[in-house]
């Protein structure tokens, strides 16, 4: 959907200026948060929507990325140039290890085993007293980026996040339409047939799983920079569930499904919680309506699903 992506990007670039004009700087923070979750949800969408792998433990990689940055900073390494790539690599390695085992299962078993692994990592961080245990590890500040850019400024942080998310989405868009993505979608459509034409299914799914984990790790690194706290809650199964809701809401298998889902869900939360502390009830009603009206996600309303070149 290049026709929409570029105007949307222009809008996002102009957004902080608009926010400043109306004197509501908090919305820059909210916009960063939405972008970060858009990235995390998109990484899950790669697994579910393109690779056919319904992972229910995606928060593990998001949280691993966050903790990597937090722990490095705890030990005095605050350069973004070291910590962020480290978060991506550690998360990718975690995804490779978990994927290597989980991908021997299918269906409900795959859902359960990914969930189990994520919960294991959750308890690992809960038990690491040195890094805050239950309470989490708070960061003294944000990562140091250099280049004259101070991430403490919410607006600078927003633009850095926007640049990274936009670049990752470009990569994702190329990937799903390249040979790799085509094979993935073939596996999603019909695994036994893919194997019968000579596709080493396991290998492609594992690489996809690792890429998804790496992207989630980057999102986690950004998230912990924004919130200033690496908490075990980032790895809890409810977090995985929320990412999954975002993907389903936006549209499984649509390139921008995760982006739209994250945007709608977080805005909904924001708006509703202004009115009532029972905002979750309202959110539930809206989600139910969306799922009933558009079971294939919001993007399915405006765009006919074309799996081969989604």
């Amino acid at each position, binding site marked *: 959907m290049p026709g929409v992506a570029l105007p949307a990007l222009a809008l996002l670039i102009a957004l902080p200026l608009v926010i400043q004009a109306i004197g509501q700087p908090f919305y820059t923070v909210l916009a960063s948060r939405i972008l970060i979750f858009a990235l995390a949800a998109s990484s899950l969408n790669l697994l579910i929507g393109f690779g056919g792998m319904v992972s229910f433990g995606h928060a593990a990689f998001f949280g691993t990325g966050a903790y990597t940055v937090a722990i490095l900073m705890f030990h005095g390494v605050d350069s973004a140039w070291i910590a962020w790539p480290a978060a991506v690599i550690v998360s990718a390695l975690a995804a490779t290890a978990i994927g290597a085992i989980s991908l021997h299962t299918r269906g409900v078993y795959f859902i359960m085993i990914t969930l189990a692994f994520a919960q294991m990592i959750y308890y690992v961080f809960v038990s690491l007293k040195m890094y805050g245990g239950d309470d989490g590890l708070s960061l003294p500040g944000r990562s140091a980026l250099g280049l004259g850019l101070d991430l403490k400024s919410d607006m600078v942080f927003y633009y850095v996040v926007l640049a990274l998310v936009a670049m990752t989405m470009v990569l994702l868009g190329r990937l799903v339409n390249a*040979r790799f993505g085509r*094979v993935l979608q*073939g596996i999603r459509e019909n695994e036994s*047939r893919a194997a*019968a034409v000579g596709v080493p299914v396991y290998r492609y799914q594992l690489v996809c799983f690792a890429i998804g984990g790496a992207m989630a790790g980057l999102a986690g690194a950004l998230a912990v920079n924004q919130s200033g706290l690496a908490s075990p809650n980032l790895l809890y199964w409810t977090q995985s569930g929320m990412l999954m809701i975002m993907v389903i809401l936006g549209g499984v298998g649509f390139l921008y499904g995760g982006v739209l889902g994250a945007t709608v869900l977080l805005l909904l939360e924001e708006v509703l919680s202004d009115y009532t502390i029972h905002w979750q009830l309202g959110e539930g009603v809206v989600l139910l309506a969306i799922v009933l009206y558009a079971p294939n996600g919001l993007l399915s309303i405006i765009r006919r699903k074309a799996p081969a070149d989604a």
Partner: protein
Amino acid sequence: MPEPMLSLAGLVKRFGGLTATDGVSLEVRPGEIHALIGPNGAGKTTLIHQICGALAPDAGSVRFLGRDVTHLTMHERVASGLVRSFQVTNLFKRFSVLDNVALAVQAAAGSSMRFWTPVVRDRSLFDQARSVLARIGLADKAGVAAAALAHGEQRQLEVGVALATRPKLLLLDEPLAGMGLEESERIVHLISDLAGACTILLVEHDMQAVFRLAHRISVLVSGRVIASGAPDEVRQDAQVRRAYLGDELAEGRAA
């Protein structure tokens, strides 16, 4: 006599108390259409699964092009030219007809660990896919989703997808299953067309088609090969007549 392309030696496969494949030895020679026939439940599909690597035999070996492939994975066998089609149509249903074939061409063209260049710019991939479509007679359906094809056309595409991987030996598992007369005729022509390009192991129930197409026939009954030879020899074989062919054989000769 040329060295066999595929040779099975003493294959055994048990499912609990049932011996589905009971010491099968079989040879497929290069260039032939070799038909595998047998009544329902004879173990034909189980045998196909062991040849293509979907099932591991409990004993015995599968040799292909002089190499022991018994322990190779399915995709490794495909890479060496041993490719199957499916008895129950098994396609990438939401892909277009062209994309179904193009994916098979792509899989055969080596690693797909390419993350940047869009597939749609891959001219040669789609040129090859189109030529396969022309060959199987689906050129005018290239843009249609596989799920939207008529049953007969799906069977044609089923063969086309297997063909697109450039097999040396093509295992066709009941390509005529559930087809009308006219559709069958088209597939029979297609198979005899292919015979020049690759060797075919054909599992089929339609005796007329089998006796028209096959150079050699093997008969599988209760997991054992009870006869193997030229169509006429098999037709005359007393054991075969008793076990299986009976009336159908007479029909085959009449036709």
